[in-house]
């Protein structure tokens, strides 16, 4: 569904990702693992078009690498970015409304919203509060719900567990698992390899801008390379 080939990502003059290739098949959850600074977030930014890149980003057979950010989102890509980036000056409800900005059907929008509210009762309770007043875990749920309001064909999750308490992390991963069960195609970027591998069908391990290992969750979970890269201990 999403095929990336020979992707180089640049931040100004610096090349952060040096030609990676990966594939996210329809209905699967693919995980991109690696330590800080490996180029995971840069890869996400290149898929959405925020970061400058060369190489191919092919989505449902269509080459998106020359398309604008807006066109890529319209094609069905949604992202819950690193650091959540909810609109803290807007209410919870307004955040969700913006997530559905490209949706035309008002009834569907209302149904989606009620669906996510029933899944996250805390968001429903705080629908008219500024999103900045939510706790970190609630903000992460809001960021994911905002992305889902767009009815995406693929969901990019960038470090959804970052900075959250273990109990909340479990909740977030339970949510991702249930999204996967419902057939959502997911690209999950994580440092929390244990949790991510539990969910992922296939995983890629990045380090210093390159993919250094890939395989099914089982294969990668057993490899020494993973531990070495993530802990820095060989």
């Amino acid at each position, binding site marked *: 569904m999403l095929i990336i080939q020979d992707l180089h990502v640049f931040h100004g003059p610096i090349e952060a990702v040096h030609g990676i290739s990966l594939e996210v098949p329809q209905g699967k959850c693919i995980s991109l693992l690696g330590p800080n600074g490996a180029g995971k977030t840069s890869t996400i930014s290149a898929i959405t078009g925020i970061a400058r890149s060369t190489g191919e980003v092919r989505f449902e057979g269509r080459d998106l690498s020359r398309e604008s950010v807006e066109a890529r989102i319209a094609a069905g890509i949604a992202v819950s970015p690193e650091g959540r980036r909810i609109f803290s000056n807007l209410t919870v409800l307004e955040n969700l409304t913006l997530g559905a900005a490209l949706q035309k059907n008002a009834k569907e929008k209302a149904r989606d919203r009620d669906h996510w509210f029933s899944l996250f009762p805390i968001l429903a309770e705080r629908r008219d509060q500024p999103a900045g007043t939510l706790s970190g875990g609630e903000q992460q749920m809001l960021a994911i719900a905002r992305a889902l309001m767009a009815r995406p064909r693929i969901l990019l999750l960038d470090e959804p567990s970052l*900075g959250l308490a273990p109990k909340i992390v479990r909740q977030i991963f339970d949510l991702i698992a249930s999204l996967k069960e419902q057939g959502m195609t997911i690209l999950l970027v994580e440092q929390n390899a244990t949790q991510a591998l539990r969910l992922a069908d296939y995983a890629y391990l990045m380090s210093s801008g390159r993919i250094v290992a890939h395989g099914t969750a089982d294969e990668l979970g057993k490899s020494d390379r993973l531990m070495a890269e993530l802990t820095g201990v060989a």
Partner: protein
Amino acid sequence: MEYIIQQVLNALSFGAEYALLALGLAIVFSIMGLVNFAHGEIIAVGGYTMVAFASLSIGNPFIVMGGAVLAAMLASLTLERVAFRPVRKADPTTGLLTAFGVSIVLQNLFLLFVSPRPIAVTSLYFLDWPIEIAGIRLASLQVFEALTTIIVIVALMLFLRRTVLGLAVRAASLDFEMVRLTGIRANRVFAMAFLISGLLAGLACIFIMARRGSVDPHLGFEPVLKAFVACVVGGFGSLPGAVLGGFLLGAVEVAMLVMLPQSLGGMTDAFVFMIVAMILIWRPDGILSPAVEKGDKL
């Protein structure tokens, strides 16, 4: 007592005009961090449009007013497209210099192609007649202006809270990139901010012209300066701050006019700016400055 009520009403009407002007600056600043000093020239475009109507002997006031507002909106949109869009990603200083440049270019275009001298526009005098209620004297223009400002504030609030594009404008003031990641086209959000700014300039133009009765190339200088001060006092980037700053500036100005002895009459502005400076010592970022992000919440 009547005297006090009279002065309070005066302060409100001054403040209403400043609020209208300040909102026009603030809405653009809030999303792109640009102080659009060419806002004054957009007001002047409205004024010259009135001159054009007069020379075509079109006197229907609704056509004249509507035309001026439309011309200001168009001018604002055009400036966004040709001048500000190319420097959107550049340094804030580049944007500021661009705004000054545009302002100077437009002033000189007025000088060269129209006239360096004031041109009389009489078609809006009808808006201004004296009203007296219970011993309080008011100009109808003051009432119209205050009402317009109130309607504008309410309409703007509805737009910013009830429409997707309005929500996007507010969200963009915080995180523009994330707005793009919801699929909303960046250009539309910027164009909308400039369109609203142009509309506000056009409305202000009607009242300025009705009061002054003439237009010259420097028509916009003083209004934009007042708007700038109002924004600084209220907190740059905050729309409620712009409104508050506008009314506060109006109140301080009227208070100075009333309280200063005749001999110091020429120094009103000096005292006004002194008070502004003192407010800024108290709140360096302005009274309602948007809260600075204090880092990630864990």
